[in-house]
């Protein structure tokens, strides 16, 4: 059987919904480092970050059948982390540093940013976080982004051979990766 690491996020999600535990493990391995680091950066506590990620993935498996993505898997996972962070903030109560920090933001005035601007800002931050990951962990995530482009779809429609598409896409990606970094992958996904 083909290695699960060659499946796209969408394919893994479909398999997960059907109860494929290997797909679940692949999803965990793919996103564990970026999500953990993201949670830690907000919570600044490794125990809380661990709990957040563990609960997130446990719930993902337990509720797999009713999983519905409005956008894609990566957006869903990061949104889940954000929601858990806010629930953690509520748990910490009135006197926590979070509440003061939010107060400061309000008092210093801020611009209402719309959804798209916030997504771009989030992409930039996620990109930085992934850049800062140890090489091995970074590689797993970055490679998986390639799999989300469906070579077969592009080839069929353009009427060219699939291996040609694969080669061209890979070449393009190599250049983009060098020039623009991982930002390109994320924009592609978090649109």
């Amino acid at each position: 059987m083909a290695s699960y690491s060659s499946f796209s996020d969408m394919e893994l999600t479909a398999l997960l919904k059907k109860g494929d535990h290997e797909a679940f493990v692949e999803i965990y391995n793919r996103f564990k480092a970026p999500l953990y680091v993201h949670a830690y950066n907000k919570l600044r506590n490794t125990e809380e970050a661990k709990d957040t990620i563990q609960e997130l993935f446990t719930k993902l498996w337990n509720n797999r059948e009713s999983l519905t993505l409005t956008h894609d898997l990566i957006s869903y996972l990061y949104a889940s982390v954000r929601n858990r962070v806010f629930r953690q903030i509520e748990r910490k109560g009135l006197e926590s540093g979070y509440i003061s920090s939010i107060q400061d933001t309000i008092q210093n005035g801020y611009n209402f940013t719309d959804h798209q601007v916030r997504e771009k800002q989030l992409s930039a931050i996620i990109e930085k976080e992934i850049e800062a990951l140890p090489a091995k962990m970074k590689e797993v995530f970055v490679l998986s982004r390639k799999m989300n482009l469906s070579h077969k779809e592009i080839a069929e429609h353009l009427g060219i051979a699939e291996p040609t598409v694969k080669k061209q896409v890979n070449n393009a990606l190599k250049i983009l990766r060098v020039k623009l970094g991982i930002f390109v992958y994320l924009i592609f996904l978090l649109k």
Partner: protein
Amino acid sequence: MNKEEVFELVRRYNEGKCTEQEQSLLETWYVNQSSAPAGEITEFKLEQDLHDIFCALPKSGRKMKLWYKIAATAAVLLMIGAGYFYMGRQAAENKDQIYVRNDIKPGGNSAVITLGNGKTIDLNKTGTGILSQEAGLLITKAADGQVICKLDPHAAKESSLMTITTPRGGAYMLELPDGTKVWLNAASSLQYLPVRAKAAERRVTLQGEAYFEVAKDKTKPFFVETAHQVIKVLGTHFNVSAYEDDPSTRTTLFEGSVWVHESRHGVKFAGNQAVLVPGQQSLWTSNGLKVQLADLKEALAWKNGYFIFNEETLGSIMQKVSRWYNIDVVFKDDLEKTSFIGVISRSKNLASVLQLLQETGNVHFKMEGRSVIVMK
């Protein structure tokens, strides 16, 4: 804003009860939280923590997969929030039986063809042989009911627009002049402009649901236009569900290749398009076009004589039921969002279908003439 007010804001966000502005405020704050300085977590600690998390995640061996399959077919497992029913099960208690004086029969083969000159042909009421030879078209009906439309080679004028319409409770299959086979579901209509050999394309307009087996012709791509999308194919088998009263349009591909393009009034929308491979389905909603893996059995259930509901809301189920049985549905007690899982033949009378849904205990029905009332 004081601390209490800020805390209240967070509380409301977690309940999903804050305004868009409040949401924007909190999410902007969230996004702008600074990142930890490099090296705050060591690589070693990171690997250790990730390993710990993995060990605490739910496990699943091969046994689990088999059990899942058994549970699904035996319908023993009760899914949270969903009712379930399956074919052939007898009513358990008489007091829960739906009392029906005049049961409602399911739909059947029924359709009307309207020619360009305004003439209508009721496919139910005609005999076999040549049904019509005018407006450039030769329409015949075989002994088995199969209707074939061909271009009339002896026609004086160019053929004109042809429309086939199914009523609620009707379905029909016919063959278009180019050899394309179309199965039309209930409450649907298909418009076709027959073309001569020198034309560059073949085009139909659809409202409702149809399954197509498009005859291969590389010189003339086949276009299916619905209210919100245009589909381009060369030679393929696919199903399109584009009912006016549905918020979404679904195109499911079984064989071949299709190109789906979002459109408004037949004009293609730049940017929002998808190429499907067999097994995929495009889903159009007001949020745009999305591609997902399809449940092929579910998508073609209607053509094969079944309803298959896979965690489908009661609102959506009753919409399909009302089209096939030609009934009105009245919802009491806010039940549209309850979801159900099950399979039932489309050839059963209405009371049988409602009975099975009722056995889940999540809903009750009352039939009054051609009206069905849905309640707790």
